[in-house]
């Protein structure tokens, strides 16, 4: 399980290379509670880096690292406005999460269909005996 904790660093490097890589980066980004809290804050609207960092009991530097992981995953975009760095959420990154959810749902629906067909077969077999 601990391998997952190191996921973001591994995945950010290949984040732009493929859809699979981007999806990994998105899930790795979501794996951390601080990053989820940052996303939740940004889901209410764009915000300055300093404002995003303020509620956390950690250094601005530590929060900045989390923000960089979110940027590398494509979930968060940064704009410079004068002296301020303004962060906003990229809703399209969530579409990729939805894509995984849809594929996974389809996979299990089909497998459970097959499981039920097997149950019917087993029932027929047992009646024949």
């Amino acid at each position, binding site marked *: 399980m601990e391998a997952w904790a190191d996921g973001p660093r591994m995945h950010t490097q290949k984040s732009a290379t493929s859809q699979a890589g981007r999806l990994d980066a998105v899930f790795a980004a979501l794996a951390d509670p601080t990053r989820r809290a940052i996303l*939740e804050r940004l*889901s209410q609207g764009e915000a300055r880096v300093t404002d995003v960092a303020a509620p956390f009991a950690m250094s601005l530097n530590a929060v900045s690292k989390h923000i960089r992981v979110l940027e590398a995953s494509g979930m968060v975009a940064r704009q410079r406005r004068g002296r301020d760095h303004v962060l906003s959420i990229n809703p399209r990154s969530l579409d990729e999460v939805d894509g995984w959810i*849809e594929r996974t749902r389809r996979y299990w629906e089909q497998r459970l269909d097959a499981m039920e067909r097997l149950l019917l077969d087993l029932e027929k077999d047992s009646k024949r005996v």
Partner: protein
Amino acid sequence: MSNGEMTGPIVQVRRRVRAAPEQVFDLWTKPDLMARWMSPFPGAVDCKASADPREGGAFSLVMSSAEANREVSGVYVQVDRPRKLVFTWVGPLTNHVNTLVTLELTPVGEETDLVLTHERLPTTAIHEGHTRGWGNILDHLAETIGKAAD
């Protein structure tokens, strides 16, 4: 989820199955039965299954055809026949990243309510309990989650 808190992107599928929980449970843990329905490739593809259904034990499913090999594998986290089976799941569907599948079976008369939950997030994050809410993100995700199939 049972605690009512959303912890991350999950997929949940429900079924009412015409069989006893014990019989359904065995379909998930007995290799000869697993090989007969778990492969997403029907027909001629060769499917080999192995399973050591106890906590910490492993399972694998190897599907091979002339063109390709595919493998799904994992480790059992909780084995409580016939009510609950929890296992990790690594395979093409998950991008070869570890995920967690929970199977819950509840008898209803002579049938069984099956609830399958597939979580993409690391279990470490799930168990940390720092679920400060997902707000709008989860509202968005919820649109594609939880459409139960009967």
